[in-house]
């Protein structure tokens, strides 16, 4: 009981704080600083001063699959049989407004919640949130119970049903564990942006904006205070760090 009370209090404080940050950046906001990539020095851990986030502009997102394909090749999770049980780190969801017939397509992946329910339910501490807000599965500890998959309201995690071969050296994957989008933590640590964002930008659509939500000068923070953004299932209070605009 006391923990849940504490968490609500934390939540409230957190919201208050993020509100304050947002106000601060409104008054400063003038220029447009793009995310400047720099690798974290060797041996230094991820910092809680940073809060990685993603803003997806569904207005610019077309009915293409570039982000999904980029993620597949980067992380090597292409399902070899097209089974329903194939892992899926990012997927395109199509929406049609029944009244107007307006169609929208948007990518959904791990939204890297501030208060991730997948972490709360994990019995072995494998499901975890890194200091910089990236939600991961520590597959060294994962026992494959799949509680986290049930707890995630976004259906973002997959279970690896089949034996995996030919993994990428930087992305170990194996049967019997749960996996999901890592926000390309291995690339971020190397000073690069996630593969999906890179591919989307290169394609000219520029529907994905990646950056530090804690830095009021970052392009993503500035955009978030300019436009109204949507948090999927905001009612759950999970505060996802991946948000949508024009949705």
């Amino acid at each position, binding site marked *: 009981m006391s923990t849940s009370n504490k968490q609500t209090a934390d939540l409230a404080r957190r919201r208050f704080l993020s509100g304050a940050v947002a106000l601060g950046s409104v008054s400063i906001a003038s220029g447009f600083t793009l995310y400047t990539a720099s690798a974290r020095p060797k*041996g230094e*851990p991820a910092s809680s001063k940073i809060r990685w986030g993603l803003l997806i502009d569904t207005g610019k997102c077309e009915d293409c699959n570039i982000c999904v394909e980029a993620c597949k090749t980067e992380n090597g999770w292409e399902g070899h049989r097209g089974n329903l049980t194939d892992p899926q780190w990012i997927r395109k969801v199509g929406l049609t407004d029944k009244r107007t017939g307006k169609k929208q397509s948007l990518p959904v992946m791990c939204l890297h919640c501030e208060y991730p329910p997948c972490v709360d339910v994990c019995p072995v501490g494998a499901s975890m949130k*890194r200091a910089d807000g990236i939600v991961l599965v*520590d597959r060294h500890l994962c026992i494959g119970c799949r509680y986290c998959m049930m707890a995630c309201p976004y259906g973002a995690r997959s279970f690896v049903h089949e034996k*995996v071969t030919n*993994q990428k*050296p930087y992305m170990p994957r194996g049967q019997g564990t749960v996996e999901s989008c890592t926000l390309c933590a291995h690339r971020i*640590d190397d000073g690069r942006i996630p593969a999906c964002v890179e591919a989307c930008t290169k394609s000219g659509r520029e529907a994905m904006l990646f950056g530090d939500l804690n830095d009021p000068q970052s392009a993503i923070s500035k955009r978030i205070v300019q436009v109204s953004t949507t948090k999927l299932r905001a009612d759950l209070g999970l505060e996802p760090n991946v948000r949508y605009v024009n949705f």
Partner: protein
Amino acid sequence: MTDLRQTKTYAVLTAALFMMSLLFMAGAAGAGEERVPLPHPAMSEKAQKAENCVAPVSEMRRYHMQYLKHQRVETLRKGVRGNPYSLKSCVNCHAVKDKAAGGARTADAFCSSCHKYAAVTIDCFSCHTNKAADRKKTSAVQSPVSQLAAHLEKAAKDRSLLK
């Protein structure tokens, strides 16, 4: 009295015979049955060039598993990169050409040499690739057979496109 003495000599004799046969059996066993050979982990060209491991060999032999398990927590959970005890770097340096992997360099021969001896089984390579990250080079130098195979595969694909 004589009886007792006789029994004593018999006892001594049987004991001596027993010892001799034991010695003989041990000798025969030593000559016939092979002991599990001591492991001699093969040094890859890359390791030979590097000359030194990431820590003194005596330390590596004894503690590499602890270093690796420490490193994986540091890297995965805390995001620390570029430390010497990265599994990727062990593989990259210690991998040797492996026929089972089509000539690519893998760490299997090196890592399993001692593990077989010590009856250790590791599951690391069910997720982590055992191949060194220089696969491109090996695929660039194609054997005539694999070139032909690639050619036939391409031709088959083209034909299916025509259908």
